[in-house]
């Protein structure tokens, strides 16, 4: 069974706040749910499938009660920040199998208000098999991604200047997003002059820490065609975990090498066909590695590919993250996947700021890396088409 054409994204909503100390996390989920359903022209009563991940307080059971939903299909898959990209695929599968017809995906959180950040040690759950062999060493979000960057530089000659171009592109896009947390355009020199956090990643190689959230509504084709919204069709998807492989790990590639080809095959398209891409940007290195692994350039050539504005809308060959991405716009709950889908939907509908809108944007890719690039992460790829 393929999910090609099995479902449409009918509703998308991004929470406007970047700091929300007066909202509970559950309330952020609820506000996003209401926004996405209103965007689709549907109601809470229409929802018969619900999807959420580890940011949802109390998981699917607490959230279904809080939201007042009556559903017949549940999915709490958690692969970190890429969970919601996989949820779109899972929703399409469930719709194709007749398990639901209107799937609601929500996420939200407030790490900024709660004082969490990527330089702090990760929280350890009991009985997790790998953590006794990692947690004494002080792994954090930033030094895990930094180790992958260090080895990539060693093997392929990737430079800090090349990584900085990814931040420069994000800042160019963010200047047109009134909700973006950081809106100042920065230069390569400014990225390199920002404080070193974990060699070789500077502060401006890191995404923001923000509150916020988002929601999506994925529906059966019959429902999509009766809604007065542009049609954004699910074309293909792939997902893959990557871990330390019993000690045989290679940190210069991500799980995108597996999830990407599956998605392209299912959609029947190639990287050259993609007009716009939302590429998870927890750190600049994340973008570079994913672009290589998805086949937008040869392995090891990511540095050249991202340089000289090639990722800037209207300037380069592959516009990415036209909302400013995690580097500038937001990274709600330290999980950026849902905003990646939302911006791709905006591009396909032609609803972004005209300054960053990609012309004739009829085919988009969304890709996420959730978790740790140097320990365990979940890769998810999604290809969407405007009909």
């Amino acid at each position: 069974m393929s999910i090609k054409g099995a479902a449409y994204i009918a509703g998308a909503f991004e929470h406007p706040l970047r700091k929300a100390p007066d909202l509970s996390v559950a309330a952020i989920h609820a506000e996003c749910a209401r926004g996405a359903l209103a965007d689709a022209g549907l109601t809470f009563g229409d929802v018969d499938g619900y999807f959420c991940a580890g940011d949802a307080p109390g998981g699917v059971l607490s959230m279904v009660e809080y939201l007042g939903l009556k559903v017949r299909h549940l999915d709490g898959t958690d692969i970190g920040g890429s969970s919601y990209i996989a949820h779109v695929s899972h929703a399409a599968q469930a719709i194709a199998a007749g398990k639901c017809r209107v799937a609601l995906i929500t996420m939200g959180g407030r790490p900024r208000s709660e004082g969490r950040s990527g330089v702090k040690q990760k929280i350890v759950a009991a009985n997790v098999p790998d953590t006794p062999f990692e947690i004494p060493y002080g792994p954090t979000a930033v030094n895990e991604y930094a180790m992958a960057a260090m080895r990539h530089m060693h093997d392929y000659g990737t430079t800090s200047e090349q990584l900085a171009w990814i931040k420069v592109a994000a800042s160019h896009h963010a200047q047109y997003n009134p909700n973006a947390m950081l809106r100042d355009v920065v230069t390569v020199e400014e990225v390199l002059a920002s404080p070193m956090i974990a060699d070789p990643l500077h502060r401006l190689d890191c995404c923001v820490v923000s509150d916020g959230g988002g929601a999506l509504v994925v529906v059966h084709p019959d429902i999509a065609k009766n809604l007065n919204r542009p049609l954004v069709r699910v074309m293909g998807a792939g997902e893959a975990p990557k871990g330390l492989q019993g000690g045989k790990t290679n940190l210069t590639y991500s799980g995108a090498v597996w999830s990407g080809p599956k998605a392209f095959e299912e959609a029947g398209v190639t990287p050259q066909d993609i007009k716009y891409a939302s590429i998870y940007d927890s750190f600049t290195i994340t973008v570079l590695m994913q672009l290589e692994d998805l086949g937008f350039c040869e392995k090891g050539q990511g540095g050249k590919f991202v340089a000289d504005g090639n990722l800037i809308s209207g300037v380069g060959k592959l516009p990415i993250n036209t909302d400013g991405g995690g580097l500038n716009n937001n990274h709600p709950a330290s999980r950026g996947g849902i905003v990646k889908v939302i911006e791709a939907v905006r591009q396909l509908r032609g609803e972004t700021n005209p300054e960053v809108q990609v012309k004739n944007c009829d085919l988009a890719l969304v890709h996420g890396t959730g978790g740790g690039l140097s320990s365990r992460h979940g890769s998810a790829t999604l290809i969407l088409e405007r009909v």
Partner: protein
Amino acid sequence: MGTIYQDRIMTIPEVHPEHKEYWDAAVEGKLLIKKCASCGEFHYYPRVICPHCHSDKTSWFEAKGTGHIYTYSVMRHGKPYAIAFVELDEGPRMMTNIVDCDLDEIRIDQKVKVVFKQSGNQENPGSFIACFTPIESD
């Protein structure tokens, strides 16, 4: 000047039943990894069932305790420390810290040997943790 290694409080790891021998050996300054009798492969972190061939014929093997740095990153925010992956001479790559050296002089492919640091602190001491330090090249 350089960035000289400073001791830091390492989080005490949970000791799971299948890893008791590993932590007991660490007290004696020995690094244990697992070897599989079915496929002949080493693996790390240690498991009851081999992650490569899924046989249960795994047994403890005392690593030489030498290897080279596969990758690393020095945390510059707060007290500096060097997280790394070391590739053991037996093959597996393991997460670790590089210690007892100038952190600014750490390089990929540098030869290193194991040294153990105790986790926790004086009031609440924990297991000994396998770290690595550069081997003098003269």
